């Protein structure tokens, strides 16, 4: 499965979708994520029914947070298709994938906990590894640790 072909299929199936290809990954706009996920999961050609890995990445210099999804098909034994979603660091909101992939539940909570990405529509978006009173999101690149040497 070439990323370029998937992009063509996505643009044909979902009018007005914003999707670009970067290397082997598809960059999907947050507002189109649910439509794209629904298409990739249900479409007979892809049947990407298994969300393997969901994680955040903080690109501080570029000013955005990225949520990286690796999708596989258990039915067809194909994959991965890499879907990346980018949101600005000052307003990191994107739709939750839980309606399509239950496996996103804990992984999105972890990404929310450590990166502060808000997954809208998540049934139970709370911190999962750190305690509720914790302030900040320690995996962000500009996070200052308590015992860190100050320049």
């Amino acid at each position: 499965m070439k990323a370029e072909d998937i992009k063509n299929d996505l643009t044909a199936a979902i009018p007005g979708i914003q999707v670009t290809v970067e290397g082997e990954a598809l960059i999907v706009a947050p507002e189109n994520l649910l439509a794209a996920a629904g298409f990739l999961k249900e479409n007979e050609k892809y049947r990407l029914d298994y969300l393997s890995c969901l994680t955040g990445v903080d690109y501080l210099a570029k000013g955005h947070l990225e949520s990286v999804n690796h999708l596989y098909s258990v039915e067809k034994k194909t994959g991965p298709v890499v879907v990346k979603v980018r949101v600005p660091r000052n307003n990191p909101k994107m739709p939750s994938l839980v309606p399509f992939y239950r496996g996103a539940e804990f992984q999105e909570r972890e990404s929310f906990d450590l990166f502060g990405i808000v997954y809208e529509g998540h049934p139970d978006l709370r911190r999962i590894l750190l305690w509720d009173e914790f302030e900040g999101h320690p995996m962000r690149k500009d996070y200052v640790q308590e015992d860190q040497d100050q320049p």
Partner: protein
Amino acid sequence: MTTGSQTPLETQMLEVSVGPQHPSTHGVFRMNVVLDGENIVKLKPVMGYLHRNHEQLAENMSYLGSMPFTDRLDYICGMTNNFAYALAVEKLAGIEVPEKAQYIRVLMAELTRLVNHTLLVGFLLNDLGAFFTPVLYAFREREKILDLFEAVAGSRMMVNYFRFGGVKADLPEGFLGKVKEILRNYPKFLDEFERLLSENEILRSRCQNVGILTKELAVSSSITGPMLRASGVNYDIRKVDRYSIYDRFDFRVPLGSVGDVYDRYYIRILEMRESLKILEQLIKQYPEKGDIISAKGAQAAKTPRMWKPAAGDAYARIEGPKGELGFYVVSDGTPKPYRYHVRPPSFINLTILEDMCLGHKVADAIVILGSVDIVLGEVDR
């Protein structure tokens, strides 16, 4: 005196916090359970007691520097953790692995699978109330394999044995002979174990039809490993991705039919028998001569703090004993990984713990949790 009124008696739900210091949570894990009588109506897992931000530690050191830390994720299966991380960095930097090293890797991975599944079955019986007798048998067998790990890596659990492009050291003399001895004795041990357990009336009545996980829910909840296959889904990454040299061995993928605790127990016994089959073939094919690390990999091992892969990202996964173990690594061209993420199977397999436990009793929840096979070092990272 009045006869029974039409309105039912007023009852209260009982909230119980199981753990974190509870022997059956396999570490420091807590389940917030709401009970109606003895039936579970709500269960929320609470984790993070062992959280040390493993990923951030790894982002602040060289690529090779976090290899020993991967041992501490799932501390039962150090070898397979090394394996997945090495694969991810090899994919990122385009490093080849010589044939002999591939054989050593698969040898270690399958021995680790034996260790993990043996221990799991032992501890599952512990959770069932067969206090420490089956676990002692399991420990006795595990000991023999850990001796081999010590001989080859210098450590029994925290092995730090894999390097990018190969492994740290060649097998010592007489190693394969010892493996053959294990292969000879293991089937006997499994038969004995099964005689004790598989047909056991108590085990069957406690495990059958408890904690059923359906195919559809298992796939959509990203469940992997023996748990997924116990629900009858044929998905083994060794067969699907054919990473390393798994295409050279002939083995079956055992499948369950019901998806209950008993299937999850039995699938592990069957998988151990398949692992023995792989090891037997591996010893026959094992090349005595050859390099154990490629030139490019040796370079990375010699100067770990100078070594830097080109910018890019890579995700690699293996069929770990507990499920899909994956590493996602992003390089920005410096000697430290820009992003390092572990896809931990035991963490994600907990997603549907509540679904499996609803309607069952507290004692069943303990067994269901035992059959998921978690290690908190990996859940909390």
